């Protein structure tokens, strides 16, 4: 149970193609009674160690009491199903304290062949 920074939703696609960029949003609600510094982090679990991280261009914010906010992050989809681990931290006593964790699975999408713009560009005697 989160003390301050409660992760209540991870927005992410249900599936993604290998090599494609996956954009996610981690929604966090502050349970603090005063302004709180809250940070987000994330890692990807799919069989490699250490778990690769998730990029959050803006990974912290000051939350008003009881307010919610989301952090946007992204990563490159590996060639297998992946589990997103999202973490939250709050700032107190001069350091960040781990507070909450949520997970979400993303399936590997099968690529569908798509052809387009087929045209003859030249023809000549050789």
């Amino acid at each position, binding site marked *: 149970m989160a003390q301050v920074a409660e992760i209540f939703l991870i927005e992410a696609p249900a599936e993604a193609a290998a090599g494609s960029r996956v954009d996610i949003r981690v929604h966090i609600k502050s349970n603090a009674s005063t302004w709180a510094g809250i940070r987000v982090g994330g890692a990807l679990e799919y069989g490699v160690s250490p778990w690769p991280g998730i990029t959050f261009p803006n990974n912290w914010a000051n939350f008003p009491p009881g307010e919610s906010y989301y952090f946007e992050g992204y990563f490159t989809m590996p060639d297998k199903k992946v589990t997103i681990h999202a973490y939250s931290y709050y700032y107190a006593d001069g350091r960040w304290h781990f507070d909450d964790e949520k997970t979400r699975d993303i399936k590997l999408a099968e690529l569908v*062949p798509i052809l387009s713009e*087929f*045209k003859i560009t030249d023809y000549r005697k050789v």
Partner: protein
Amino acid sequence: MAVKTMEVTLNPLALSSGWYQDTATGQWYYCDEEGKRYIYVAGYLYPAVAWEPAPKVVNVRHGDTLRIDVSFKYSGPAKTCKLRGVIGNLRTVWPYDFDEVIYAHSPSFTIPESTDPVIQNRSVSISIITALAAGKHYSIYAKLENGIGFKEGETGSVALRDAVFVVSAEPTFTEFKITDYKKV
């Protein structure tokens, strides 16, 4: 459903939209508002090849080789296929489709896996043989094969009308004239 029966006097490149039936074979065809023609088979409409005037005419002789270059975009899993290049004619009777005279395949090639559309460039070479009559124009088109059905603009090209002219192999003299005469 308004049905139009085959009429040989129709302009083959400017049909009005609607259903058509070849009364000789019973085969159904459909022409849409944009003039694209489809072949009806077992509940499905399959696009027929579209026609465009060729941007140039290439003169060839028997024994020559014609190379057709194509480009297309592909995204998806790795796919192995061949390119089929065809020389033929606009069929002069309904359904005015591509009447293949000769064709050739490229060697098999594998299009690499890609999540984003990537432009691919491929070629196919066709030997000019005597099945093509000397002194005649022919049209060309190309398409991908091996599990890839034809869909003009996606898996195959439009047909380029009168893109090739087969020059006679016999010695040909033309434009003979006296250019001058004088005392020497």
